[in-house]
């Protein structure tokens, strides 16, 4: 009989100091902030509550072709590529005018349009570029740069048709304060992760983790199942313990992204694609622009064409878990876990933000809705 805890948020243990048995106490927010370390972290992270993101596909071209790539799913890949720098400048100004303060430049491969990256950075100083790392992006573009890693070189050759990819990525982004290497766990590359992370951290690169989240209709071998989620969880914990300074992650990040339930089922996705409300938050402000500078509310989320039931994407979690502050003010351990998650997200996504030590070492279950 399978263990009921497989792939769930809790580890069956109890955080240190937490009373035995069900905790029915209703904690006041001020009580949760009474601990000076918690209060200090809260004051640090809340300074970034002004961040309001939208995402932009920069090019419909890529210099790699990876199995399971989200970009080449659905209709967005068919959008005309708009390479007009002035059109992008106008778009960025319009975005700023409607309150957007953070841009995520992605799909298919942003490094192929360096002029547009410069235009975006000139207009919108906070943001991130999602790249495969094959071409170095001009250091004058001061966005965070997320370099996608999908396994060791043998796997990259098989899945991404790219040879000696890790070495090229490190060569391009070693010692670059913008760079965070994003290791995407698929169900097939879990055992390779430790070796790859060891190589990256030995080169003093910073690493965070992503989970392969199947595009709609994908039935291939990269998709996670209950067993692969448990195995991934173990490797993430091991890597955090082995490289605490270089691996940007938290115990609650592990919980949220390796749970048997996806992010939508756990937290309720707040992106427009799954959230009809336009009152406030992402449902009101988020847009996902295609390469022709159009957007479609029905498709708008951080990684369009992902199967929402399988979504454990790191970008989605950064918004969805963070937005659920009020569900995490139930007790000190849950609130500290949430703070660790937000602290991790900011260190991964915001230039100059340095991650603090995790406040909660235990694996705390996501709050029940």
């Amino acid at each position, binding site marked *: 009989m399978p263990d009921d805890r497989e792939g769930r948020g809790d580890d069956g243990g109890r955080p240190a100091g937490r009373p035995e048995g069900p905790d029915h106490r209703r904690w*006041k*927010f*001020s009580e949760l902030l009474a601990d000076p370390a918690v209060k200090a972290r809260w004051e640090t992270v*809340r300074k970034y*509550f*002004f961040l*309001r993101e939208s995402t932009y596909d920069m090019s419909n071209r890529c210099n790699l072709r990876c199995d399971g790539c989200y970009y080449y799913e659905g209709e967005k890949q068919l959008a005309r590529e708009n390479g007009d720098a002035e059109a992008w400048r106008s778009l960025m100004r319009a975005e700023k005018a409607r*309150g957007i303060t953070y841009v995520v430049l992605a799909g298919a491969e942003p490094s192929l349009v360096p002029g547009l990256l410069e235009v975006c950075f000139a207009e919108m100083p906070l943001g991130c570029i999602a790249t495969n790392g094959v071409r170095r992006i001009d250091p004058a573009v001061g966005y965070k740069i997320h370099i996608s890693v999908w396994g060791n070189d043998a796997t990259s050759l098989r899945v991404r048709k790219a040879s000696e990819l890790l070495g090229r990525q490190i060569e391009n982004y070693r010692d670059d304060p913008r760079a965070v290497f994003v290791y995407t766990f698929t169900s097939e590359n879990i055992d390779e992760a430790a070796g790859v992370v060891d190589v990256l951290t030995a080169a003093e690169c910073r690493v965070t983790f992503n989970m392969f989240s199947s595009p709609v209709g994908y039935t291939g071998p990269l998709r996670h199942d209950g067993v692969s989620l448990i195995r991934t969880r173990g490797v993430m914990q091991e890597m955090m313990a082995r490289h605490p300074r270089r691996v940007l992650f938290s115990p609650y990040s592990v919980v949220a992204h390796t749970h048997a339930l996806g992010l939508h089922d756990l937290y309720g996705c*707040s992106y427009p694609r799954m959230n009809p*409300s336009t*009152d*406030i*938050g*992402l449902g*009101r*402000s988020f847009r996902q622009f295609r390469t022709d500078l159009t957007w479609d509310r029905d498709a708008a989320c951080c990684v369009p064409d992902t199967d929402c039931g399988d979504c454990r994407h790191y970008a989605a979690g950064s918004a969805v878990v*963070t*937005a659920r*502050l*009020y*569900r995490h*003010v139930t007790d000190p351990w849950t609130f500290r876990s949430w703070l660790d998650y937000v602290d991790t997200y900011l260190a991964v996504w915001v230039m100059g933000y340095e991650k603090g030590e995790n406040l909660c070492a235990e694996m705390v279950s996501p709050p029940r809705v």
Partner: protein
Amino acid sequence: MPESKETRERILQIASIIIEELKLEEITPESFDPDLDLVDELGVDSMDLATVALVLQDEYGVFIDEDDYPKLKTVRLIAEYLQSRLQGRKGKDA
């Protein structure tokens, strides 16, 4: 209908909390327009509103359901919302 003294005091108290939590400058509780749209006119986002709601929960000892956050668009609406929650609690206590 003119607002009662109690309502006026509650409006000032809520305005004071919003000013403090959102670190608003050059505005006082007395000069805070209770009908100002916090989202459309002041630019308050979901995280700010959640923070204010948590502090209000502490202050008034009532639970504010997350589904109700979008309703809390002005200081006056917040005051009315709290009033109804407090009355509901009194009714239960009676």
